[in-house]
């Protein structure tokens, strides 16, 4: 029986994670990871990679909780292993601050991070503009290390990496792929003509502040300070439908000002660089199967895109679900079409 040809489109954190899951589990498939951009030029490379997120409005909470839990459990195991520094995975403790007491005092993922609790009054004294806060330990996953580490794992499992821009799914059918896993992020807007996909522009600064050991996140995440392995990422902006990839000096000024108010020592920090990423946003992430007729062939398509600002946070969990959808595709194929 001929091996099933699977192609994963998009080599950001979601595509790479999905490709690894499939290649390591479905050994009867040949898996290709295909993208026009690879690390360090993906959107994921810009992200600080802190595991925190906001819920999608129309997806059952248990499903989102499983995505979060699967991702953090996977990364916690890496963090406690010898691979931690290679993979760019580290534990990060810190505080999420609110100017007024939120209605929902516990985010839906609070039981999956470590040691989640409300901040004490003494802890809040450091933040005179905030009335409520949450303290916990989560994981930071730095894609500039994590993506190459995933690629190594993918190749070890027999995967092929191809640099190629995909203009439409037909092309992939013509190339003989039986299953297409669509992790094209913002690219899905044109690749599968999904008008619900839109960019949310995020600008971040990398600063040198090695004395900062905690993350600080303000309210809904407009301002944040995320200490990493080699620098501290501070941000951010959330500009919907803004496609500009060039840094905006006004945004940089604004970010420095807001973050310095949270952490005064940042005024002494040297700025190392500025970057911009376009979050591949959608009202709800699209994680589902579709059977398409492409160029006269029946092709299974599994969509896994639209993670917005929560790509790293949900990467492994959504990859596992995409894997199970691919499995379903394989089991439901009539034997004749596998030849």
């Amino acid at each position, binding site marked *: 029986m001929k091996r099933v040809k699977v192609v994963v489109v998009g080599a950001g954190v979601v595509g790479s994670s999905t490709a690894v899951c499939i290649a390591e589990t479905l050994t009867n498939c040949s898996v290709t990871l295909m993208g026009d951009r690879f690390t360090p030029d993906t959107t994921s490379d810009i992200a600080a990679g802190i595991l925190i997120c906001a819920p999608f409005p129309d997806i059952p909470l248990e499903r989102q909780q499983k995505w979060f839990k699967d991702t953090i459990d996977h990364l916690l195991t890496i963090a406690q292993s*010898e691979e931690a520094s290679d993979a760019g995975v580290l534990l990060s403790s810190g505080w999420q601050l609110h100017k007024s007491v939120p209605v929902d005092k516990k985010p839906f993922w609070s039981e999956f991070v470590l040691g989640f609790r409300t901040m*004490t009054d*003494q802890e809040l004294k450091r933040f005179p503009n905030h009335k409520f806060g949450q303290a916990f330990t989560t994981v930071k996953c730095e894609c500039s290390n994590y993506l190459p580490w995933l690629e190594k794992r993918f190749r070890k499992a027999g995967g092929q990496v191809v640099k190629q821009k995909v203009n439409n799914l037909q092309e992939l059918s013509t190339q003989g792929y039986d299953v297409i896993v669509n992790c094209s992020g913002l690219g899905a807007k044109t690749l599968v003509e999904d008008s619900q996909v839109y960019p949310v522009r995020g600008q971040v600064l990398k600063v040198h502040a090695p004395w900062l050991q*905690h993350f600080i996140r303000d309210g809904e995440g407009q301002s944040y300070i995320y200490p990493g392995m080699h620098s501290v990422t501070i941000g951010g902006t959330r500009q919907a439908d803004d496609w500009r990839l060039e840094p905006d000096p006004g945004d940089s000024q604004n970010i420095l000002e807001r973050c310095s108010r949270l952490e*005064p020592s940042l005024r002494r920090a040297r700025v190392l660089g500025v970057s911009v990423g376009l979050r591949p946003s959608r009202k709800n992430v699209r994680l589902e199967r579709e059977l398409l007729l492409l160029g006269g062939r029946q092709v299974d398509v599994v969509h896994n895109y639209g993670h917005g600002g929560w790509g790293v946070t949900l990467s492994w969990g959504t990859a596992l679900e995409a894997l199970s959808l691919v499995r379903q595709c394989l089991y439901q194929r009539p034997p004749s079409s596998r030849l």
Partner: protein
Amino acid sequence: MRVAVIGAGVSGLSTAQSIFEQYHSLIIPLTIEVYADRFTPLTTSDGAAGFWQPYLYDKGNVQETKWCKETFDYLLSFLRSPDSIKMGIFLQSGYNLCSESAPDPSFKDSVLGFRTLTERELELFPGYSYGWFNTALMVEGKTYLPWLMDWLRERGVKFYQRKIESFKELVDSGVDIIINCTGVRSGDLQFDPELTPGRGQILKVQAPWLKHWIITHSFTAGTYNAPYIIPGSQSVVVGGCFQIGNWSEQNNSEDHQRIWEAACKLEPSLKHAQIVEDWTGLRPVRSKVRLVRESMQSGQSKFEVIHNYGHGGFGLTIHRGCAQEAARLFGEILELKDWVPKSSL
């Protein structure tokens, strides 16, 4: 009035600071001189990781717990200022791990966000079944001591690099009050049977992915003889050595091996850390801190000494509380000698 501080570690410098702060406007002129054979970055305070944490239990030395808390609150107060970096002060959270359940430590009310570890957190540390998480402060000697010296220098304090062989030496030159902050070598000036070195060896490594301190406690091996990992602003300190009575300041390769293996078992990611160098320091260990004033006589001269030494492995942790107490003792001397009208103290 001439005041001579002997010792330029964190105790000597911070005591000079407290005395200047409290008395420079009352005693004019107040000349403060600091004498030491070693200055930053070569003091014991410089080599230490700079982590604020007293020993788990104070064994009834409640005064010491109070001085440690005072120091914590003092350092914390600088955090909103951007100058906190110039002082080498920053917050860091972490884990205190035990192999069996234990009573809450003496410092639980001093630190921020103190709590017991959850089951899931303990899963991160196989071999340990109990412990606590809290946010504490770092005060890195290599930055803090130069900051203190600048502070003192700006206010006219003079520094002299030389080993003082006796109190008499200083008294003969006209010093009125001596502040004795000579740490582990206090015995050279005045025999003290309770003072002994607690040798510590540490490894400085590059592991910038570590953002938490991890201190393990073995109630059989004793304080700091179990592995600990303390990230700093420039490198990570790895340790676990507390040898009472060992005066050797040389790095020992067997200690190195033992410390490194235990630390890698505790934190597997260290396998890929680059080891930069080893350092050995002698903690000035004593049953309790010697913080008292003593009237002494040398020939015909009577003089006053304030002793402030014997801070073991918690010198940085307790320094401000002790410095303030030493300054209070200084005031007692002034009062006793009628050097300053009682009403102004």
